[in-house]
């Protein structure tokens, strides 16, 4: 009984915290909302019982109908709480906020006697099986129904926590900025998790209240949230099966069963108190020694063994025997130790690595190569100003970046290059100025919209979704995946299988072209710096961008990896993608860029070829003086 309701609640919390990374310290409020909603929906008008207790509504609905409304109310409540996320607060502030929201809800429910009868809470809730009072002889029937609900709940939950949608939620959890940069609606995805989590919590609360026949503020203290969190952490963060184990261990054994252990005469609650201490100690133990929990979140493996899951599909085995590059790629073995020889050998075969694997940017069928639908420059920036306090970091910058070419942006440290990138891609809001992309004004669009329009960026310190595998890092890049649409959630696999199969195909092609296919199923956090850079580039390519803004892609790369990166860039130039390359290493700028923009102190100093810029005294001065 408690197992079933706790399981539903813990699943909801796991979707929020484990999968989507929303640390909801106030989750128990969703449960309470469900319980109170069940109460006020099923109880008759207060006057019927002679105003024995006070509450709003009193609709006297059928329990079955009430549960439907309870779920809806929970979803709405979860969504309202999720609105907090719209403010893009730091995660610690967000956690504080959610904690406080629950505290407000608790305080209001205690203080306001007219709403849900204040501190004593609601009693005499109707039993959904028609009899009055708790467990009047049909307890086992109720338990059976609950287990059936859990079973059904699991299949609903899977639609969100697994597959491409779950992958995107996990991406948001691991690095929300990187997710924004490839066009994920971070706020919306988190909100979705909170809406669904709220629904699960409310259902659990409603079922619990219906079973006990009462609900009071004392039933949902902060410690209850912690008990559910412990179930998630001990069982397995983001793992639905793990949560089952966690719920059996923590809320059921430690919290509920411990209440039946006879205490000492003077201390009837001794076992329950110790149960709480063990619960909290377990949380700490697992965070310390095994943060993934008993049953870790298993990521699907692609292209190995039998494909247990449809979305771990891989191309035909014949294809899988990868055409080994004619020239061995510059590998990690040659890069750090004898970088010189690696470079010299690689420079002989400039471009050979990618051509050897007959590199062509894999495209989704039916999606044409990016050709600007509009004659002018792809990206046009006019008079953009970004101010930090009194400093005008970007001070009236105007520039144009065409499609199908590499345009460079150089300038000394503090020139405002990265700030400009942030403003262009929507990570910072400029104070004034216009940005238009592909003929459309995008100045007011949020970052993920700009990425979806085809303006995709990379980061100076490469970012990856560290708990996802390498290939999943690529797969996440797919824009507007049908599995992430309402229809995809409703119809499930049938609806999006084809799209995902194509997605996986493209990812394999890219991985092979970049010679990283052997690492496809490794977690992204295990990669070296150079490999991470490549994964970031591949992920950006998976979004089928019209323009890539690369923020110092060579920073921190060994010479060998830098060469590999440059070769990839050369190959990609012909694909029609526009590149905006921000770099300190002027060699690559000189070799790759037709046009170079020079910035200093927040302003565009000069535009021209690298050769022209080199001749200008003010450019020299800016670089020498900094």
């Amino acid at each position, binding site marked *: 009984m408690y197992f079933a309701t706790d399981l539903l609640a813990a699943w909801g919390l796991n979707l929020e915290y484990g999968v989507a990374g929303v640390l909801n310290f106030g989750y128990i409020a969703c449960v309470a909302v469900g319980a109170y909603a069940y109460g006020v929906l099923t109880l008759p008008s207060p006057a019927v019982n002679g105003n024995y207790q006070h509450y709003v509504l009193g609709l006297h609905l059928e329990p079955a109908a009430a549960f439907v409304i309870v779920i809806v109310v929970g979803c709405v409540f979860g969504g309202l709480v999720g609105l907090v996320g719209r403010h893009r607060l730091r995660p610690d502030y967000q956690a*504080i906020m959610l904690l406080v929201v629950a*505290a407000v809800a608790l305080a*209001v429910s205690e203080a306001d006697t007219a709403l849900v009868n204040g501190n004593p809470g609601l009693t005499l809730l109707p039993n959904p099986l028609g009899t009055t009072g708790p467990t009047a002889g049909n307890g086992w029937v109720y338990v059976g129904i609950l287990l059936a609900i859990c079973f059904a709940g699991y299949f609903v939950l899977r639609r969100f926590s697994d597959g491409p949608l779950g992958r995107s939620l996990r991406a948001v959890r691991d690095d929300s900025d990187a997710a924004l940069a490839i066009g994920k609606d971070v706020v919306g995805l988190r909100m979705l998790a909170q809406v669904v989590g709220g629904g699960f919590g409310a259902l659990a609360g409603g079922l619990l209240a219906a079973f006990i026949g009462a609900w009071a503020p004392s039933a949902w203290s902060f410690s209850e949230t912690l008990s559910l969190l412990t179930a998630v952490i001990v069982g397995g963060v983001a793992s639905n099966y793990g949560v089952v184990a966690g719920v059996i261990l923590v809320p059921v054994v430690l919290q509920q069963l411990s209440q039946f252990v006879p205490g000492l005469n003077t201390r009837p609650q001794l076992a329950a108190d110790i149960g*709480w201490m063990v619960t909290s100690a377990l949380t700490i133990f697992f965070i310390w020694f095994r943060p993934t929990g008993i049953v870790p979140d298993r990521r699907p493996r692609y292209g190995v063994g039998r494909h247990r899951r449809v979305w771990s599909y891989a191309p035909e085995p014949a294809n899988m025997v990868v055409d080994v590059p004619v020239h061995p790629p510059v590998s990690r073995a040659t890069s750090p130790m004898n970088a010189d020889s690696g470079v010299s050998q690689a420079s002989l075969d400039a471009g050979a690595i990618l051509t050897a694997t007959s590199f062509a940017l894999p495209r989704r069928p039916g999606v044409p190569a990016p050709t600007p639908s509009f004659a002018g420059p792809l990206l046009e920036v006019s008079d953009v100003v970004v101010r930090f306090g009194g400093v005008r970091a970007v001070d009236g910058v105007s520039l144009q970046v065409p499609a199908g070419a590499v345009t460079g942006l150089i300038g000394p440290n503090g020139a405002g290059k990265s700030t400009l990138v942030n403003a262009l891609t929507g990570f910072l809001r400029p104070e004034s100025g216009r940005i238009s992309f592909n003929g459309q004004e995008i100045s007011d669009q949020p970052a993920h919209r700009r990425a979806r329009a085809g303006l995709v960026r990379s980061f100076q310190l490469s970012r990856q979704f560290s708990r996802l595998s390498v290939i999943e890092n690529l797969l996440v890049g797919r824009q507007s995946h049908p599995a992430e649409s309402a229809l995809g959630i409703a119809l499930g696999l049938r609806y999006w299988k084809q799209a995902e199969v194509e997605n996986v195909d493209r990812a394999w092609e890219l991985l092979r072209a970049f010679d990283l296919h052997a690492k496809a199923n490794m977690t992204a956090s295990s990669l070296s710096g150079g490999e991470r850079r490549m994964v970031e580039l591949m992920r950006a390519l998976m979004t089928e961008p019209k323009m890539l803004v690369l923020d110092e892609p060579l920073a921190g790369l060994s010479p060998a990896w830098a060469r590999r990166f440059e070769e990839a860039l050369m190959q990609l130039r012909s694909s029609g993608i526009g590149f905006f390359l921000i770099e300190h290493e002027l060699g690559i700028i000189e070799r790759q860029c037709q046009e170079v923009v020079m910035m200093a102190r927040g302003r565009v100093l000069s535009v021209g070829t690298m050769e022209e810029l080199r001749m200008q005294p003010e450019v020299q001065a800016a670089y020498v003086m900094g």
Partner: protein
Amino acid sequence: MSIFVSAVGFGVASGAVIALASLGFTLQFGLTNTLNIAYGSFITLAAFVGYGFVQFGLSPWTTMAIVAAIMGVLSVAYYGGFIRSLIRRSIGFGPLAIATAAALIFIEYTIVLVAGTTTRSYGLTSGTTYHLWDFVWTSTQVAIIVLAAALVTMFQLGLRTTRLGRALRATAANRTLARACGIRVERVSVGAWMISGLLCGVAGVALAMTTQAFTYNLGLTFLIVIIAAAVVGGIGEPLGAVTGGLIIGLVTQVSAAYFNPAYSDVAAFVLLIAALLLRPTGLFGGQARRSNVATA
């Protein structure tokens, strides 16, 4: 008018306690970037340890000094043995916050195990009542206000003039840079947690002295008040925490005088939510919004 003035008087008195507690909390946050939810249970612990000494027959002020010392040591032990190790494992913000929440529950139920769930009270007589201008304060309240003012002034002076104070400010501003400048940031952090433990001890005993009665879960509700004060002032900002504490004290007491007293905490929480949404950096700056994401 007199309702208002006396409410303001109460507000200053409770604000003084909140300010001390909030100062300790904000220090932990500012120096080691830890959302230490267990801070609430440290307040409870201070109140209960103090209860033991008061029962033993010590005067509340002696008790306060002893408890402050004990809490200082415990706070350092908690940081050195627990928080620091977790930070070094770089487990991320979420798990760290959950671990401190678990520590809160653990300490809370340890207290329950030792002292039970019964309501406790220091049973102090309210002493003489002072009428200053239109304010009405008990002698205890006056003493606590004076003490809090003295401690805050000492802290602020120390922050400006002593070596540790300068090191604290430097480390809070930029830990890596401070380390590169030869500041022993680990020692500074330990110092910060000690000071925050001392403040927590004083605040816990003062809270127990001014509230009529308390139980083992005194800390959790008070924690949210503390956080509210810290956030309203700008989390990580010492002066902000003090100002925020006073504001929260005033708001809760004044709203309690005019509206349903049961809502006094709600008023504080609503203020916190408004502060987070409207001015997340608080009155005294700080960085709440995620800026410079890409240049880090």
